């Protein structure tokens, strides 16, 4: 049953071309980067994403410029930068969501655990199943109940076993720290929840299909401080099992939740380092200016 959703290869079973030869799990170090970018991981750290010279274009506009970085598995990586710097575009490329924008194209590579996400025959839908996404504005399906929202991904994939679904429903809502608040009214509309609860419902929905990685695009920007704190606590609890990449314009949030932080500016990766270093002793003057509020 689980094989329908979990650990699914990127290639569809019948109609797709064979997957490309997987790249080594620990690729060779990329071309030496400027001192301010830290692309080489600590020894023996598992890598979730190996981004190699990634550029993304919307028509003639280049939104992301030659970005290379290694995102470690089982941790939270934050991407910060001013509006329009390309951080959301870079994030969306990690599960091929940017392709949904007409005119979008890219150069470079993104390897997920050694496999090229954009290789020939790779199914974007399967990629998005393994790499879940949470958006800025929570988007529970308006016509579905709380339970139906969580299980919609499984049901769309043909899962019918009621016992399995019930178990997965509770597990996902518990992981999203929402179970206790909704367990007695799972049949109520998902849109009837508060803003913070709706966002956690969306996280439960993403977790129900057991992704390996969660991408979060400013997940708390529409939430009040208490709801934000609850989502941050949730992110902290998830990182032992998942890799989380979070885009945030709230620098303090990046400082609180992440182990590594990438600073983007005008489409370029300016500095990528442990979060402590970015906020306590950044190497690049642009990073220093941004995190200390002197930008502009």
């Amino acid at each position, binding site marked *: 049953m689980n094989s329908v959703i979990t650990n699914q290869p990127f290639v569809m079973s019948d109609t797709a071309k064979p997957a490309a030869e997987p790249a080594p799990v620990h690729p060779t170090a990329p071309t030496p980067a400027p001192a301010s970018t830290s692309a080489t991981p600590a020894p023996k750290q598992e890598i979730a994403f190996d981004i190699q010279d990634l550029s993304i274009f919307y028509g003639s506009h280049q939104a992301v410029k030659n970005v290379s970085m290694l995102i470690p598995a089982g941790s939270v990586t934050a991407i910060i930068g001013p509006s329009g710097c390309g951080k959301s575009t870079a994030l969306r490329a990690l599960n091929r969501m940017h392709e949904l924008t007409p005119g979008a194209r890219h150069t470079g590579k993104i390897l997920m655990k050694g496999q090229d996400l954009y290789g020939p025959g790779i199914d974007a839908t399967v990629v998005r199943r393994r790499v879940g996404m949470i958006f800025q504005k929570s988007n529970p399906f308006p016509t579905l109940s709380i339970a139906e929202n969580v299980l919609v991904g499984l049901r769309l994939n043909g899962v019918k076993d009621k016992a399995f679904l019930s178990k997965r429903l509770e597990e996902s809502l518990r992981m999203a720290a929402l179970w206790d608040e909704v367990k007695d009214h799972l049949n109520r509309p998902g849109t009837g929840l508060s803003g913070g609860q709706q966002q956690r419902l969306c996280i439960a929905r993403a977790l129900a299909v057991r992704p390996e990685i969660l991408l979060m695009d400013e997940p708390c920007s529409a939430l009040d401080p*208490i709801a934000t*704190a*609850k989502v*941050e*606590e949730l992110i*902290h*609890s998830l990182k032992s099992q998942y890799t989380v990449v979070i885009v945030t314009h709230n620098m*303090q949030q990046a*400082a*609180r939740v992440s182990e590594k932080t990438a600073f983007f500016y005008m489409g370029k990766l300016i500095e990528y380092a442990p*979060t*402590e270093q970015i*906020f*306590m002793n950044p190497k690049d003057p642009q990073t220093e200016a941004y995190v200390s509020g002197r930008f502009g």
Partner: protein
Amino acid sequence: MKRYFHHELEDLRKHLILMGERTIDSVRLSMQSLLADDVSMAGQVIALDDEIDRLEVLIDAECVRYITLRQPVAHDVRLMTVAMKTNHELERAGDEATSIAKRARRLAEFGKVDEFFNIPRMGDLALEQLRDAMDSFIAEDVEKALLVPKRDKEVDDLNRDNYVKLTDKISGHPETSHATIELIFISKSLERIADHATNIAEEVVYLLKGEDVRHTNEVRRSVM
């Protein structure tokens, strides 16, 4: 709601309390070394000073990290500033204790000290002040903290009295001048330790009440 990083505040408190304990141990051992004429204790005091110095660096780093990554406000930001300042006060008190221990070692070379004047009493008071200051932090006791500065006058008075008596001794018995000068410095070190304890207690009041009572009538001490 307790956040996942709030344990860092508890770790900081523990390190500060440990540093207080080490400083109190250091003062106590330095006085024992002096009064019991036991130079072996001086080595222990010097070793404690190394540990106190390490804790000072650790606590400062913890505070800067917490301020940077957690953006504390209200009580938490006061805890950060108080921790960094108390850290420094304890480290200085530890240095004074080390100075006493080293002078005790030098005194031993001049033979047994025949009279310590007010020094034993000052040692007891300085230790009591330090303990009360740290206890007021641990127990979050404002009243206890406010009492510490008010007792500082007694230590100051004893030091002034020592100075008069010890300088008189030098005048009357110049052959004792080397040893007596060491006692003058030791008296001054004990007076400084009590001052550091007073400063810590004032910081505790700021932490608990958000009020800066330094240099106010509420804690007015002696004035030279």
